[in-house]
């Protein structure tokens, strides 16, 4: 058993951190304040392979292993939650499923531009009436000649406003006793696909989340990912891997919170001493660090299993459940430590606090993760 990052993974961490500190950290505050997605920085990141992290080199990606992928997401998120979210969702639940379930034409046609960052991807599952209950979705795909016509509304689409390639989950068989879902790759410039205004969110501002509406959007059969009826299978498999990314985002935000809290505790003086001289504060910092350590190890374990091709459904759910909680708890403790200053926008801690919350919600709420874990515990 080997608990340390390999030489390669350590170098990757260092390399990404350097980029994140030089290019992302200075821009993160403004991204949040203006809710503007920085296309220029995204362009630089595309050239550095951030949009094809786990995709093999033959399709234009970096070909990283899962642990390295987790490290990259953590380090990006540490600098900017909104950009970490963009890179994570694009990679794990938009590009990767095309790699895993697509045919060669789809890989060449859709995956390569995504891996190179020429097209940013989305994963469109959620609808106004279908959140945790994904199977309640109503978007319908009707056979029409040698293609399909799609009608429906998708909401809360991460990367939506800047995306070029969208994975749309739709009903291909609405009959109640045989509800079947199918995934379609739909280009943003296709007739019948429209994007709504960017959501005004509590956190992760700067990620262009928006609704996507389909009205009589015609897609050819070659855009169907996998077979008819395979949509749920693809969704579940994809979300399995996606959990590791979300967990890493939360971890990055927690780490950033700890880093600024240590600095603040050393500098701030009250009652004649530094905050860090008080036992109570020492206790808080220790708890923050311990939780972060535990979250990191859970993430690495899930990544390791996935990299080896082993079952990791329970472990990835565990990692996401725990790490998302850590993100919220640690950022909250950090904000409290900053006192009044933490409540102002002059310090980044309030942004971390706002960014962290959604990790407990998207790609399977913490409640859903608990159910997933419990199912593994109680199954025969």
């Amino acid at each position, binding site marked *: 058993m080997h608990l340390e990052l390999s030489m390669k993974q350590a170098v990757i961490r260092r390399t990404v951190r350097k980029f994140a500190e030089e290019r992302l950290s200075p821009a993160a505050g403004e991204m949040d304040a203006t809710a503007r997605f920085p296309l220029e920085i995204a362009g630089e990141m595309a050239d550095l392979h951030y949009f094809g992290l786990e995709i093999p080199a033959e399709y234009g990606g970096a070909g990283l292993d899962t642990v390295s992928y987790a490290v990259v997401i953590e380090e990006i998120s540490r600098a900017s939650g909104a950009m970490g979210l963009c890179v994570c969702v694009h990679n794990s639940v938009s590009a990767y499923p095309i790699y895993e379930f697509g045919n060669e034409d789809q890989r060449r046609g859709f995956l390569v531009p995504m891996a190179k960052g020429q097209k940013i991807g989305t994963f469109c599952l959620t609808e106004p009436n279908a959140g945790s209950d994904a199977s309640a979705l109503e978007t319908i795909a009707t056979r029409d000649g040698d293609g399909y016509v799609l009608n429906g509304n998708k909401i809360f689409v991460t990367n939506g406003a800047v995306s070029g390639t969208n994975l749309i989950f739709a009903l291909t068989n609405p009959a109640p006793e045989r509800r079947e879902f199918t995934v379609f790759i739909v280009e943003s410039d296709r007739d019948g696909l429209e994007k709504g205004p960017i959501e005004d969110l509590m956190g992760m501002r700067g990620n262009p989340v928006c609704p996507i509406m389909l009205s009589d959007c015609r897609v050819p059969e070659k855009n169907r990912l996998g077979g008819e009826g395979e949509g749920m299978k693809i969704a579940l498999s994809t979300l399995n891997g996606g959990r590791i990314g979300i967990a890493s985002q939360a971890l990055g935000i927690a780490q950033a919170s700890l880093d600024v809290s240590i*600095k603040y505790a*050393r*500098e701030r*003086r009250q009652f004649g001493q*530094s905050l*860090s001289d008080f036992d109570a504060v020492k206790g808080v910092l220790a708890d923050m660090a311990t939780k972060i350590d535990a979250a990191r190890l859970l993430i690495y374990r899930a990544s390791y299993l996935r990299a080896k091709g082993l079952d990791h459904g329970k472990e990835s759910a565990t990692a996401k459940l725990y790490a998302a909680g850590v993100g919220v708890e640690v950022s909250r403790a950090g904000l409290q430590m900053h006192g009044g200053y933490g409540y102002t926008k002059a310090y980044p801690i309030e942004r971390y606090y706002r960014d962290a919350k959604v990790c407990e919600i998207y790609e399977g709420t913490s409640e859903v993760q608990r159910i997933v874990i419990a199912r593994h515990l109680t199954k025969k």
Partner: protein
Amino acid sequence: MKKMQTDRNYEGIWIFGDYRNYFQNRVTLQLISKGKELAQALKTEVTVLVLGNRIHQYAMEYVAHGADVVMVVDHPRLKDYHVETYTLLVAKMVESFRPEIFLAGATAFGREFFPRLAKRLRTGLSADCVSLEIDSESGLLVQTTPAFGGDLLAEIVTPDHRPQMATVHPGVFEERVHDPLAVGRIVYPELEIEADERVQLMRTRPEQVRKVNLEDAPVVFAGGRGLGSMERFQVLFDLAELLGGEVGATRPAILSGWVEDTRLLGQTGKSVKPRLLVTAGTSGALQYTSGIQGAEAIVAINRDPHAPIFKIADLGLVGDAHAILGLLLEKLRKRL
């Protein structure tokens, strides 16, 4: 004092005469002074070696500052400093005259030339020393150099190879006062001048139009990353102007583009020994403090009471540098 077997053939303290920028660059004079001390312990003489064209006046200066002997190699082909040619000539002289110790100032040229020479002579060389002593037991030259940015010191010796060579940080030793009545021998050894043509100096000119003179400033105000912005450096310039001083900075502040890099203080920049040094928004990283430790009095201002800079400060002020310096400027302006 016991002398080693190999030492029998090697005797004398040599100093490389780095005469360029004579009036600002005092390191050769400083080394002559230290050399005299070492020579006394070893019962020997100090010889300064100068190569160049029309350099007799420097030889006279060196005698006046304490050299017992000055060896002059004067030739038109040596008009400009040249690493390969000097290595060739000086190596021959060392092989003929066998000095026991050979010192040079750690100027840019010294740090380029001396390692090549040491390699040709297959002997040891320490860099940028801050202290030199003769060990009473072994008779060896103990060379103290900073390591890891200056907070750690290493004592280095060259036990079995000769000469024992070192470059010395400018400003460490004090030069002797110019004595027009000092006595010394100026000799012109016979030497065939072969110049190495592989490197040719095409053009040379002084570097900066405006000179930032940190080394001579009696008061230095230094700023670091903690100041926060280029605008906040202005108060340092105002204070420096008021008190007839100069402004320095740490590497992070320079890399942020807040001040020009000629103001860099520290290991890869300048070392200063002003009467007063006020350092603000600097945490006290090792490679910075080595450049300011020589100041008579250090005042440090930082928001973090645990910042390492306070360990080397005579007076530490915990607080916001911007507020403190702004207030200081206001009060001093009223007074002066």
